């Protein structure tokens, strides 16, 4: 009589045989059996990958393929707030905002604390108006409101009406396909295939891959005629990798990224001798809420409200930061809010409802328990157990700053809160940073070519763009400044490959 145990034994045996095949071919071999060949290979379907596909299509490429590891397109790009900083656009002019590429670069250099690449920032900022138009040509629709993100000296974060990166990704995906770009989900990039002289010939891909099942699917070798673009994003979702680089970023700190942000592309390029740069500079989002997963709705709410609202330490009832300082400044201060035992005691963002309700995010955060409404200071103090007198004094002080246009506490730029007094009823959201962006990555030049660590020269046939590339932003990236950079270097990579 067969028992269930022997069924399971039989099952385990079958699984073991399955794991042995198909056999992997080794890289660096010139005798590769190629399963597919394409003019241009793009790995990753986020902003960088799609911008490259659209630009290459515009330039006449006939055979472009995009490999996406996940079951859905857009990776991390489809999850963000849909903002992109462009300087000197028609919308800025219409709204009376004076700005320039030079000013944008200066803001970013300041936030980068001496580590940002002026050359790459300049290249990206100057391509800004082209990218703005390219996205509009793809069918992306911008709001009439421009967002003021932290650390900037001019309001420049243009936002699509969806208020999500999906508002870029879906029209760009559609446009790419209209150029005949082949888009393939469940194709996981395994490693580069290089010739003896170091030139990248193609890649090995796991076709039919299901995320979390590392042995699923089958390995195929794909040859690139013109080049391989690695646009695989960051490694924010790879806890062991990020914690090795920054011990503060253990699992206590959440992550806003898509589940696929595990650094595959970065790790594979490192294996081929590419130059690592600033890997420890990992940015956390100071606008995140611990009351939902990922990026969620809270981010949009706090982004809209930071300029005219205050962030309060629950121990003191007082402000503890400039709510529009750059991200690193704020995230570092937020993560220090602790109770007496050292456990996280998230700060409170207190916004006036009369202003908060002007943005659609308020309805979302209230509905999904990411923020709550209170009709008095007493009610906030009671609910969150914080000193009422102190909180009251802080709100009175703040309203004086609104009136005078000066913030003697933290030097916040007050022109975004003119006439917006903090009065009841209040909307309150908790703040706790989440890992959001990896400034570090692989070094590229202004042609989006990948640089080899050994020689300082480019690796032929290999390009990188977007979050996987490093050194652009330095220590801290400003809000809304990745989207334009991802797209600018995606476009640049396409131009370089078409010339190659």
């Amino acid at each position, binding site marked *: 009589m067969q028992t269930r145990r022997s069924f399971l034994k*039989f099952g385990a045996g*079958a699984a073991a045989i399955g794991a042995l095949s198909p056999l992997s071919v080794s890289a660096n071999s010139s005798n590769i059996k190629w399963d597919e060949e394409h003019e241009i290979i793009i790995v990753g379907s986020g902003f960088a990958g799609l911008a490259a596909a659209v630009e290459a299509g515009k330039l006449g490429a006939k055979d472009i393929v995009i490999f996406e590891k996940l079951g*859905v*397109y857009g990776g991390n790009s489809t999850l963000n707030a849909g903002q992109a900083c462009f300087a000197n656009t028609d919308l800025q002019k219409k709204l009376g905002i004076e700005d320039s590429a030079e000013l944008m670069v200066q803001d970013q250099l300041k936030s980068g604390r001496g580590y940002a690449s002026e050359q790459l920032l300049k290249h990206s900022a100057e391509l800004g108006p082209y990218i703005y138009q390219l996205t509009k040509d793809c069918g992306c629709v911008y709001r009439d409101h421009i967002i003021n993100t932290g650390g900037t000296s001019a309001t420049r974060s243009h936002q699509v009406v969806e208020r999500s990166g999906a508002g870029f990704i879906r029209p760009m995906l559609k446009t790419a396909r209209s150029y005949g770009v082949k888009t393939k989900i469940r194709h996981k990039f395994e490693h580069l295939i290089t010739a003896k002289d170091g030139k990248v010939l193609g890649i090995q891909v796991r076709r039919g891959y299901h995320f979390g099942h590392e042995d699923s699917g089958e390995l195929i070798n794909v040859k690139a005629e013109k080049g391989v673009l690695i646009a695989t994003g960051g490694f924010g979702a790879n806890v062991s990798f990020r914690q090795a680089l920054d011990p503060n970023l253990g699992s206590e700190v959440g992550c806003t990224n*898509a589940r696929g942000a595990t650094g595959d592309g970065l790790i594979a390029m490192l294996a081929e001798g590419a130059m690592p740069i600033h890997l420890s500079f990992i940015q956390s989002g100071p606008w995140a809420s611990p009351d939902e997963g*990922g990026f*969620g*709705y809270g981010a949009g709410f706090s982004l809209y409200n930071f300029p005219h609202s205050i962030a309060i330490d629950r121990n003191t009832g007082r402000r503890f930061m400039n709510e529009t300082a750059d991200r690193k400044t704020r995230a570092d201060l937020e993560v220090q809010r602790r109770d007496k035992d050292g456990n996280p005691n998230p700060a409170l963002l207190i916004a006036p409802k009369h202003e908060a309700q002007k943005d659609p995010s308020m309805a979302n955060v209230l*509905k999904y328990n990411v923020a709550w409404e209170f009709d008095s200071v007493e009610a906030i103090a009671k609910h969150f157990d914080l000193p009422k007198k102190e909180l009251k004094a802080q709100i009175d002080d703040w309203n004086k700053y609104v009136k005078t246009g000066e913030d003697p506490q933290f030097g916040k730029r007050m022109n975004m809160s003119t006439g917006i007094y903090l009065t009841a009823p209040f909307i309150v959201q908790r703040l706790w940073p989440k890992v959001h962006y990896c400034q570090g990555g692989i070094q590229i030049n202004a042609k989006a070519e990948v640089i080899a660590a050994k020689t300082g020269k480019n690796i032929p046939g290999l390009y990188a763009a977007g979050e996987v590339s490093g050194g652009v932003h330095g220590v801290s990236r400003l809000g809304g400044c990745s989207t334009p950079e991802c797209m600018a270097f995606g476009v640049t990579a396409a131009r370089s490959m078409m010339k190659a």
Partner: protein
Amino acid sequence: MKKINTLLVLILGGCIALSAQARDKRDYHEMVYDSGCKTCHDQGMKAFPSDNSCLQCHDMSELAEQTKREGHEARQNPHDSMHYGQEAPCMECHGEHKPKQAICMDCHNFDFPKFKQ
């Protein structure tokens, strides 16, 4: 008796070998089980079903219609979402043999009352 047992081992073994959770199944898919594992496992028993497998019986645009939402929630239609339109493959959110949750829940506290884990 022995022959029947051997046959059973082969058939059941083929299913169970895939995963220890293969015993779990959806009551409403009973008729699919009656037709055999390969009804869904169209890429062989050692592989996940193809993304088109579920679509042999289910139509994406019909599902989108069934889960349509109004007003404030209009973009939260899991079968026609703001992020992925109608392109999210069934298995991103649904599992036949093991509990799963909608990928929306990675970031949002949505309420999908009809969703069966």
